[in-house]
C-alpha cells in the first residue's frame, strides 16, 4: 500500500471544492482497516453530515482532513481558506476549525483564554487575540462568560465555548465530531438552530459527524451515509427544503420523508452482519 498524500489547493487547483478525498483508505497499526476506499467531495460553503454506525470511520475522515492523521493510501485535498491572515502569515489551524465530541477545554484557565488559545499558539498579539476571542464568544452568545472557568458552565455552554474556539481563527472549514451527542435533546435542538444561524451568517464549509438520523437531516444540505467498518459510502442524500430552516421543518412531512430515506440507507449496517 503506497503512503497517502495531503496537498494544498494551490498546487491542486481546487476551485469550488473545500475538501476532496479520493480512494482514501486508513489502516491502523494494529491491522484494523477503518476506512475505505472512500471518496468524498465537499463544495465550499456546503453543510454535510457524515452518518454511520459506531466504528465506521466517521471520525477518521475528520482526522484525515484535519491532518491529525495521514491516510494509508489515496489523496486528501483541502482548500486552505485565507481568513483574515495577512500575506505571509501562517493561519492558525491551517484554515480548519475542529469541534470534538467532548468540549475539550483546558480546565485550568478562563473561557476567554480557552478561546484565545489557537491565536496564542500562532503568536497573534495579546490585545488583538483577546478582542477576537471576545467576538467569537459573543457570536455563540457567551459574551458575559469570558471570565468564567469551564467548570462553572453547563454542558451546552461548554460546547458553545468549544465552537467559539473553533471559529476564532475564522477558518473556512469547520469539522465537527458528534459535538452535541452528549447533550440533552432540548439543549441539542437549540444548539442545532444556533449552528444553522451561524453557518448562514458566516458561510463556512461544515462537515458534521453524527449518529443521529434526525440531527443529520435537520442540519445538512447533504447526508452521506456510511457503511460499517471499513467505512464506505452507502448513500449520498441531498436534503432539499425551504431555507432558512426552522422548527417548522422539524415537524414537516418532508422532514419525516427524509428521515425515513436516510434510515433506510442506514439499515444494512444494523440489520446485516453484527459488527459489535
Amino acid at each position, binding site marked *: 500500500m503506497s503512503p497517502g498524500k495531503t496537498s494544498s489547493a494551490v498546487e491542486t487547483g481546487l476551485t469550488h471544492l473545500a475538501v476532496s478525498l479520493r480512494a482514501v483508505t486508513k489502516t491502523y497499526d494494529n491491522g484494523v482497516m477503518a476506512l475505505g476506499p472512500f471518496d468524498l467531495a465537499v463544495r465550499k460553503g456546503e453543510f454535510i453530515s457524515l452518518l454511520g454506525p459506531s466504528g465506521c470511520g466517521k471520525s477518521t475522515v475528520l482526522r484525515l482532513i484535519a491532518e491529525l492523521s495521514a491516510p494509508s493510501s489515496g489523496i486528501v485535498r483541502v482548500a486552505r481558506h485565507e481568513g483574515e491572515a495577512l500575506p505571509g502569515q501562517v493561519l492558525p*489551524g491551517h484554515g*480548519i476549525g475542529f469541534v*470534538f465530541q467532548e468540549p*475539550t477545554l483546558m*480546565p485550568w*484557565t478562563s473561557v476567554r483564554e480557552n478561546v484565545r*488559545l489557537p491565536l496564542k*499558539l500562532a503568536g497573534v498579539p495579546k490585545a488583538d487575540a483577546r478582542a477576537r476571542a471576545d467576538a467569537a464568544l459573543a457570536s455563540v452568545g457567551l459574551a458575559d462568560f469570558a471570565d468564567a472557568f469551564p467548570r*462553572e458552565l*453547563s454542558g451546552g455552554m461548554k460546547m458553545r465555548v468549544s465552537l467559539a474556539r473553533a471559529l476564532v481563527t475564522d477558518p473556512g472549514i469547520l469539522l465537527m465530531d458528534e459535538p452535541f451527542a452528549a447533550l440533552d435533546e432540548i439543549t441539542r435542538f437549540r444548539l442545532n438552530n444556533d449552528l444553522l444561524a451561524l453557518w448562514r451568517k458566516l458561510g463556512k464549509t461544515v462537515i458534521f459527524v453524527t449518529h443521529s438520523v434526525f440531527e443529520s437531516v435537520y442540519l445538512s444540505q447533504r447526508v452521506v451515509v456510511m457503511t460499517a467498518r471499513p467505512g464506505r459510502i452507502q448513500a449520498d442524500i441531498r436534503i432539499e427544503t425551504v431555507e432558512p430552516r426552522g422548527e417548522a421543518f422539524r415537524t414537516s412531512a418532508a422532514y419525516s420523508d427524509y428521515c425515513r430515506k436516510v434510515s433506510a440507507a442506514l439499515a444494512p449496517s444494523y440489520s446485516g452482519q453484527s459488527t459489535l
Partner: protein
Amino acid sequence: MSAQATATTKPQGVQRAMRLVLPVIVFAAGLIAWELVVRIKGIPPYVLPAPSVIVLTLIKDWAVLSQSLATTLLTTLEGFVAASVGGIALALLFNQSKWVEYSLFPYAIVLQVTPVIAIAPLLLIYLEQQTAVVVCAFIVAFFPVLSNTTLGLNSVDRNLAGLFQLYGASKPQTLRFLKLPAALPYILGGLRIAGGLSLIGAVVAEIAAGTAGAGSGLAYRIAESGYRLNIPRMFAALLLLSLAGIVIYGVLALVSHLVLRRWHESALGKEN
C-alpha cells in the same frame, strides 16, 4: 440565547467546624489521661514524663532546642528544594526523551527502594556532614516528585493534545500551555508528600550522624538526650519535630489549595 452559571454552594459550616473541633477534643482527652496516669501512679520523669513536665522542659531548654530546630528545618528545606527541582527536572527530561527515561528510571527506583538509613553512614564517610544530611533528605523526597510529575505529564487529555497539534503548537508551547498545567495537580501532590519525607530524610541522616558523635539538629538532640536519660527533653524535641512536620504539611496543602481552587476537583467542595 440565554445561559446561566451553576450556583456554587457554600460549604457546610457545621461539618467544617467538627473537622477541627473533634481532633482537638481527642488530643486534649489524651493529654489529660496521660497527665493523670503519670501523677496517680507516680511514674518518674526518666521513665515517662508528664505532658506538663515536657512543656516546662521545652521552655527551659528553648535556647538549645530552637537552635536545633532551625538546623533541622534548614536541612529539610534544602533537601525539599533539591528534591522538587531535581524531581520535576528529571520528569521533564524523561518526558522529552524515552531513551533517557529507559536509561535512568531503574536507578531512580533503586535509589527509592534502598532504605536511606542504610545509605546514610556511607554518605557521611564520603561527604561533608551537612551535605550528606541534605543528600539523604533529597534521596528520600525526590521520588514522589519524579513519579507524580511523570504521571501528570502523561495524563494530558488526548483530545486537547490533538487540538494543540491541529493548531501547530511547538514542543515548548505544548509543554508550557498544556502539559505543565495539566500536570500541576499531580506535581503539587508529589510536593506535599516530599515535604514530609524530606523531614524524615533529614532526621534519619542526623541520627546516623549523631551515632558518629557529631551534629546539632533536633534528631541529634533526641539521640543525645537518650544517651543521657534526659527523657523529658527527648519528648520535647520529638514534639517539635511533629509540629514541624504538621506545619510543613499544612503549608504545602494550603499552597496546593490556593493554586488549584478555581479549577481542580481536589480543591473543590464535595457537594459540587
